[in-house]
């Protein structure tokens, strides 16, 4: 009986696995693309608990926002060749959605569309129109615009060991903003050129002789790039939509073996939809050593203890768990300039707690505890707490200075000497009087 009930319970638990507690995703799918062609990707999303709603770019319904309130948590924009959109999903309005904490996954294409200028707003520079990515290596039976791209595991977004993925589309160059997160780079032997006239090698040679100006080649180019905004919403620009398709997920690599398209798409979707690498500060505390409540004011040269609590989102349980894996947190105690800048190490034995003890500087003023941690791929951690630091009150100074003891000793010894002298003098007086008195008598 007990065995049966435990089996039932485990079955129930297994069926309840959902990685994202009912997030809703709006998929804007161009009518020229077939939904069934992307069944592996969409099916994987639905399996992980996302509710997908499909819509064509020109449709008005379902609306993304109703009177300013978003209806969906995420948007997938698989409309790379569309030139005109319905009113509420023009690329400009999508940027507005990012500040509402809606995440976007956008597929680009070699054609010139409104998405080209949208990508430029995120510091991605696209090559001239109709210049897809081309690679003549490795030797394969597919056309030169279908390229197996090796996946480097340098980004914390991707699980290590993903096999090369098939890619068709346009590369882009990355601008210099630190908010960009490169996910996939073009292979070193690839370049962007007009595919109809076998890749214009003359133009390539001319460009490389001009010291690289106008040369779209090599692994400087990115194929899939993410961008994390200041409110921690994420966008991913993918150079082409075909890499999410079933056909590419099943196509065999020229070197043999299955490609990593499905795995890659899963990882990228997990990052964009805020399942992975999502951190937050649960709270910060500060107080003097030995106390437990933050005082109203601090005094200069106080010993201060600062504690931060950090959690990471665990998508498997849809809960925030304390996270001690940040090993380069920094705390700044700042008044116009950081007077103290120290590391904030994790406390062993206390998950998610980071603590440091330091001495307040010898300056009085209004200071801030500033926690500012920004790393590519991870959510930004920012916190600022303002505290006043006052000079010691008149009775908080040390009472007796050790440097002054010779003077203390001198004055006290003279006082004692005076009292002894006076006592002995008077004793002598009395004796003398007694003597005199006895004499007179």
């Amino acid at each position, binding site marked *: 009986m007990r065995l049966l009930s435990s089996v039932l319970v485990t079955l129930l638990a297994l069926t309840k696995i959902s990685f994202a507690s009912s997030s809703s995703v709006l998929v804007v799918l161009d009518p020229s693309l077939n939904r069934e062609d992307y069944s592996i990707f969409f099916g994987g999303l639905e399996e992980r608990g996302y509710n997908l709603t499909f819509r064509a770019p020109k449709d008005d319904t379902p609306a993304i926002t109703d009177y300013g309130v978003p209806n969906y948590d995420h948007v997938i924009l698989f409309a790379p060749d569309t030139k005109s959109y319905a009113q509420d999903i023009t690329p400009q309005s999508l940027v507005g959605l990012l500040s509402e904490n809606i995440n976007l996954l956008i597929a680009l294409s070699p054609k010139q569309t409104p998405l080209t200028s949208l990508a430029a707003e995120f510091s991605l520079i696209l090559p001239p129109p109709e210049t897809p990515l081309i690679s003549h290596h490795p030797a394969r039976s597919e056309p030169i615009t279908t390229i197996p791209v090796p996946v480097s595991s340098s980004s914390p977004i991707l699980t290590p060991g993903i096999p090369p993925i098939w890619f068709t589309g346009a590369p882009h160059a990355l601008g210099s903003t630190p908010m960009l997160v490169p996910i996939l780079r073009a292979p070193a032997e690839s370049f962007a050129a007009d595919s109809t006239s076998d890749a214009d090698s003359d133009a390539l040679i001319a460009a490389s002789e001009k010291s690289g100006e106008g040369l779209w080649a090599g692994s400087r180019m990115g194929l899939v790039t993410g961008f994390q905004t200041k409110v921690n919403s994420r966008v991913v620009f993918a150079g082409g939509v075909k890499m999410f398709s079933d056909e590419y997920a099943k196509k065999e690599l020229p070197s043999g073996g299955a490609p990593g398209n499905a795995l890659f798409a899963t990882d990228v979707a997990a990052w964009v939809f805020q399942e992975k690498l999502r951190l937050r500060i649960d709270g910060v505390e500060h107080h003097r050593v030995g106390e437990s409540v933050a005082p109203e004011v601090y005094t200069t040269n106080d010993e201060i203890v600062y504690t931060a609590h950090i959690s990471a989102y665990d998508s498997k349980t849809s809960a925030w768990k304390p996270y001690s894996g940040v090993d380069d947190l920094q705390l700044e105690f700042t008044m116009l300039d950081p007077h103290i800048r120290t590391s904030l190490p994790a406390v062993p034995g206390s998950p998610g707690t980071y603590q440091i003890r330091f001495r307040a500087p010898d300056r009085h003023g209004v200071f801030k505890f500033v926690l500012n941690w920004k790393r590519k791929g991870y959510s930004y951690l920012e916190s600022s707490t303002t505290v006043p630091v006052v000079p010691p009150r008149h009775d908080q100074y040390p009472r007796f*200075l050790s*440097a*002054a003891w*010779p*003077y*203390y000793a*001198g*004055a006290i*010894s*003279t*006082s004692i*000497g*005076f009292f002894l*002298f*006076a006592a*002995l*003098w*008077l004793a*002598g*007086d009395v004796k003398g009087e007694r003597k005199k008195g006895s004499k007179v008598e």
Partner: protein
Amino acid sequence: PDRLKFIDAFLCFIVLSGVLQFVYCVLVTNFPFNAFLAGFAIQWQFVLTASLRAQVNPENRSEFKEVSPERAFADFALGSIVLHFFVFNFLG
């Protein structure tokens, strides 16, 4: 006379302590300056004792007719107590 010798001994002691304090101030630090001033001011005790000596000395009887030795000693004691009060206040 004995008494004068006694006063002289006290005077020597005061001078010695004053010299030591001054040497410390010059050589090491005059950081708690108020403490140095207070410690040095106790030297005024020297002046008071010297005046006591002068008034009590039998050889000077001609100069101090209206001041009896007891009165001299009382003046000396009062002045010293007031001096010590101020000095300890300023010592900080």
